[in-house]
């Protein structure tokens, strides 16, 4: 698996360290909880997509979403410290707490956070600006302004968990959660922190939803057809938005063993790269000539992994691009069911920043059940591509 594999090669801080998954926490439209909640939700496979109830969508082309019930989240929040947080920060804090409890980790300088998000806290940005337009400078709230910076979720989670190691936020369409997990794994492998909480978060809100629908970015996009999330299907016609937060606890193997942690799986490899493409475009004719992902996949044989979770979310351009890339880079494996097409979780939870972490969680649980190494693959409009190989630790 060449230079991209963790656990091999020399790094600047000595032998590169093996990275394992020791906990997970999620707050999504289907379930709320740790690994014991994620596993049955995935097994059930029930869709949480339904007509949006939180705001009216009169005259809007799209109407579906996968919404989180805040009544399920409220018990996880601290009434004193979390009450003033914005909703997306509350989702983040709740999911990070669940992951920390699931893994039984404690805070301190050894603990870091990586949060992936597609949209951040646009609700707060809109609220902040709307108050100005109503009342002028006197309407501006110094309490809301910090939420408009996209690292507010990571900051809130760091304060809640006393995570004083690196705290990084990555902004990326479609594969924000996968990228956060990969970046966190690299930080652990490189010795920046012994433990990282990594995943993603996004929330549904009316202005964002309406804008995306007006731009034709949501099912049914510009054309006709039935609204719905149908990744890789011939009649796919756009993604359906979801919301929620999902996080994994990544830990250095030795540290996890030393404290007797439950080890779900090992992140054997995490690579990400770019296929230079016009911004915001999905160009399925663009082959991956140079990215590290392509080189990593070309080293894999069909026996290296049993199944593949893909980032397909019903966006025809991105779905078709992913299929074409996997077919080119994994010509033998891509003929097997579970790989062509890959498995998609978007119909269950809707597209949001936490979905990538749920893919990694699903892969970890599959690997722990003896289903062999599992590949998590993703491609986004604009060309960002990622692959994670997750397997049972030996």
């Amino acid at each position, binding site marked *: 698996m060449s230079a991209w594999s963790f656990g091999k090669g020399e790094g600047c801080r000595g032998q590169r360290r093996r990275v394992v998954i020791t906990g997970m926490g999620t707050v999504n439209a289907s379930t709320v909880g740790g690994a014991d909640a994620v596993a049955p939700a995935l097994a059930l496979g029930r869709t949480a997509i339904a007509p949006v109830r939180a705001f009216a969508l009169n005259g809007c082309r799209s109407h579906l979403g996968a919404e989180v019930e805040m009544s399920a989240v409220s018990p996880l929040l601290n009434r004193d410290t979390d009450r003033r947080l914005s909703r997306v920060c509350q989702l983040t804090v709740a999911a990070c707490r669940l992951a920390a409890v699931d893994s039984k980790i404690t805070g301190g300088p050894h603990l870091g956070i990586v949060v992936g998000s597609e949209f951040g806290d646009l609700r707060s940005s809109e609220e902040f600006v709307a108050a*100005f337009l109503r009342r002028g400078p006197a309407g501006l709230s110094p309490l809301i302004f910090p939420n408009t910076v996209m690292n507010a979720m990571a900051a809130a989670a760091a304060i809640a968990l006393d995570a004083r190691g690196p705290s990084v936020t990555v902004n*990326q369409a479609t594969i924000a959660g996968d990228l956060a997990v990969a970046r966190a794994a690299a930080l652990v492998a490189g010795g920046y922190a012994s433990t990282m909480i990594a995943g993603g978060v996004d929330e549904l809100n009316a202005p964002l939803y309406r804008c995306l629908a007006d731009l034709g970015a949501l099912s049914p996009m510009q054309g006709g057809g039935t609204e719905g999330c149908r990744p890789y299907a011939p009649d796919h016609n756009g993604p359906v938005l979801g919301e929620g937060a999902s996080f994994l606890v990544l830990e250095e193997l030795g540290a996890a063993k030393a404290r007797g942690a439950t080890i779900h799986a090992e992140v054997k490899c995490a690579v990400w790269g770019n296929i230079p493409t016009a911004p915001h475009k999905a160009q399925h004719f663009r082959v991956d000539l140079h990215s590290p992902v392509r080189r990593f996949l070309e080293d894999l044989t069909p026996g290296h992994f049993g199944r593949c979770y893909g980032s397909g979310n019903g966006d025809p351009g991105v779905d078709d691009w992913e299929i074409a890339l996997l077919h080119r880079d994994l010509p033998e494996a891509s003929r097997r069911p579970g790989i062509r097409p890959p498995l998609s979780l978007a119909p269950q939870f809707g597209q949001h920043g936490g979905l990538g972490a749920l893919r990694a969680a699903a892969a970890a649980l599959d690997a722990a059940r003896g289903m062999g190494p599992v590949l998590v693959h993703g491609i986004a409009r604009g060309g960002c591509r990622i692959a994670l190989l997750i397997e049972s630790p030996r």
Partner: protein
Amino acid sequence: MTRIVVSGLGVVSPYGVGVKTFWEGIAAGTCAIRPITLIETEGFRSRIAAEVPAPAVAGLVLSRRRSRADRVALAAAREAVADAHLTAQDRSVAALLVGAVGGGMLEGEAWYWEEARTGRRSPRIKALRSILPASHAETVGHYLGLAGPKETIIMACASGAASIALGADLIREGVVPLAVVGGVDVLTRICFMGFNALKLLDSEPCRPFDRDRRGMSLGEAAAFMVLEEADRCRARGGPIYGEYLGAGMTTDAHHITAPHPVGDGMIRAMNLALDAAGIPATEIGYVNAHGTGTPQNDRVEALALSCVFGEGSVPVSSTKSMVGHTMAAAGTLEAIATVLALQHSLIPPTANLRNLDPEVPFDCVPEVARPAPVEVALSNSFGFGGQNVSLVFRKG
């Protein structure tokens, strides 16, 4: 250990386009903070900032349909790549890490304002495609053909510094041989109004470390550098501006906007950076401070510097006194200022510093740049959410 050098620089700053223009500006101690022209400021206490000059933006080659931030980001990244003499083959294996916060919000705000004022759907809605910070990396990656790992890093005002630290880590770990790293931010209404609401802006050009300082001044910029394996750079005959030695990244986990009262996270970041660099604090000959000019930041940073280096032991200056706080770009812009200070053996000054705060026990190089044969220097960047990044560079 893999040695990493800085082999290319690119800047669009309040002085205009180009690294040379930027260095001439800060070396001369020229304050570029002026009345704001880009957005309406009626009714606000502070109405000044360090904007990128309009003629400089107008001269950029990227289509005007792209956001202002995308345009300045591409110009700076393009200069850095050209400066490093990177071939298409080099670029095809280069990582790209962009620190960003505001994204294309300036254009998004224009759309929102128009719809709110007219009550009608605005054709400006297409601008929303570029509203998110990730748009800069997509633009730069596409136009420059960068195919290595691509990331948009958001760590508030430490974003640009973090992109350097994380990009260097990809090189040290053997993932890529070189990385184009940087930061970009332009003035937005939300940012301007927000810092006004927090009462963190001075109505006069900011005065970091001055006894009478009253807050920061906003600025806008894009700054990029090329980091590269030293052996590779030498083998291809690339330029070497300086050597990247190491970084420290920490979080306060204390408060969303206020720094830790005794600078715990700042101290740990600086000490981690020195550890990673493998040098003692006594070897640092210059610190480019975060130095925003707010009473609280400067006091806590001085406290943290005293703890790490000892009182009065090292010259400290804030280039924000001249170009304002360029937010997500600041970390990279100040890293470039630090590298150029090493290269030119000249410490850029803290402009507008007339009466040093007695709580700041350092020589803050007031008003005039100072010749100094510095070999190793440290650059600090701190941000909302208690984000702390310190970087160490050695003369090339």
